[in-house]
């Protein structure tokens, strides 16, 4: 269980995280939504251990988070593959580094499983620049799962992709999370309202200063598996959608 208690973080005198209280249970899929600069990426990075918080408590299963660890893997917005390594080497080197206790046969098995799962095994020897953005991000997803993290952190993972590719990757992500992996909990930062509702169990809505960071937490009561085509007609979907719209419109920065 992931716990944040009164977490504060500022950059250049700007309070980006303002007293964040949040508990995420095992097996939950939580989306974070809000305007640019609301601190949602900062929150994800703090959970990932990439940056220290100024004040408050941040813990996973009772242990304070101070640095990155193999129990948490991240997928970044801009793919962030190492450009001179093949797709296979990108996944394998990360899996090897994060899970040194595995034998190389185990590592190879895991790497092959997830590259297959995202449909890239045939392209494994290509470099990132030789494949499309969608394929790069699928590699990044495979890389994250290959570490077998308990907690998966996604920072606007599909933001740079076209709508069709995004839809396919969302489906792949949910399938991997539910059926193919030991990963239990997912935190995802997103700009997309529909994406947030389609994937998440709960949606954390974040706002701009000077108010509190979290302005609302909306549960999504839709049974899984969710079918992309029919789910948008469900009343529950509509309700969440309208509430999100209202919150985000009210929060819209005046200058924009």
């Amino acid at each position, binding site marked *: 269980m992931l716990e944040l208690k009164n977490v504060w973080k500022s950059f250049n005198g700007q309070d980006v995280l303002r007293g964040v209280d949040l508990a995420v249970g095992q097996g939950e899929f939580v989306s974070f939504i809000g305007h640019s600069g609301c601190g949602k990426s900062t929150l994800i990075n703090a959970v*990932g*251990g*990439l940056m220290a918080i100024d004040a408050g408590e941040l813990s996973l299963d009772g242990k304070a988070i101070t640095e*990155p*660890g*193999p129990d*948490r*893997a*991240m997928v*970044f917005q*801009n793919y*962030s*593959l*190492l*450009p*001179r*390594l093949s797709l296979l*080497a990108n996944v394998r*080197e*990360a*899996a*090897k*580094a*994060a899970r040194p206790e595995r034998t190389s046969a185990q590592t190879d098995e895991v790497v092959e499983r997830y590259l297959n799962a995202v449909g890239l095994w045939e392209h494994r020897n290509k470099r990132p620049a030789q494949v499309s953005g969608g394929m790069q991000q699928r590699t990044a997803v495979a*890389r994250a799962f290959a*570490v077998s993290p308990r907690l998966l952190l996604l920072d606007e993972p599909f933001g740079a992709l076209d709508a069709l590719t995004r839809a396919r990757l969302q489906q792949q992500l949910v399938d991997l999370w539910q059926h193919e992996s030991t990963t239990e909990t997912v935190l995802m930062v997103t700009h997309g309202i529909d994406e947030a509702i389609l994937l998440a169990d709960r949606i954390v809505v974040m706002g701009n200063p000077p108010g509190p960071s979290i302005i609302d937490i909306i549960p999504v009561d839709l049974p899984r598996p969710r079918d992309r085509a029919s789910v948008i007609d469900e009343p529950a979907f509509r309700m969440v959608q309208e509430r999100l719209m209202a919150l985000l419109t009210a929060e819209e920065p005046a200058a924009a």
Partner: protein
Amino acid sequence: MTLIHPSDTEADLPGAGPPAPSVAPQRPKPPSRLVAMGRSIGWAAVGATVIVLFWAIVARSSPDLPGPSEGFAALRRLLRYPFYDLGPNDKGIGIQLGVSLVKVFTGFAFAVVVGVPLGFLIGGSKRAWAAVNPIIQVLRPVSPLAWFPIGLVVLKDVGNAATFVIFITSLWPTVLNTAAGAASVPTDQRNVARVFKFGRVAYVRHVVVPHSLPSIITGMRLSMGIAWMVIVAAEMLAGNTGIGYFVWNSYNGGKLADVIAAIVLIGGIGVLLDTAFLRLGRKVAA
């Protein structure tokens, strides 16, 4: 499968039967590479002709300066037997250039072996940078030739002292360019290494080295260019062997035409060295 001659295909396309007089649109042809190359060679020839004419005019009014015909005659004579060896004071120009190249590559190799790891160190650590950078900034503007006496005292051999001068010459650009490359690893890649717990070796091998490689090659190319300039002066000081010694010896023997021929050859080899590193850089960037 039947092979169709390219000129037949149009007639085989539906709707493009024999009676149709319609003409397929023709893409305008870009000028061929051969033409472009010929053009640049032509302009280079124009430039060279102007310089040679200028040289001929200056030589006519200054009787001590050999003219173009003497210069080219000397070049031809030197290149006829480039590798003859008649004792320590009389060797072919090929041997002299070879000796200089060996010194340059030796000093350069030592500079790479020392400079690249040092560059990684100061590029990756702010403390190492703060410790080393002021020293480099003080030493870098010093003419490498000032190190010649120190090399001579420590290494007790003029040839090795010249090699030491080349080492110093090549060191600064190699260190600084490597450091610049190592310091500019994108945050994304650094974050990937942190999130996936890359060890020091994996981080250097998979992130720092690949990212810095282009700037390392640039540093090597700059080093080699300066080293090839400095070797001539270093060998004039050393007065032993090598192309610098050849130039100085020719001047003392009153053979100014040989000096001019040597200048042309030194320049030519400089271009070859530079091109080689440019190619290497492109290959690495690909």
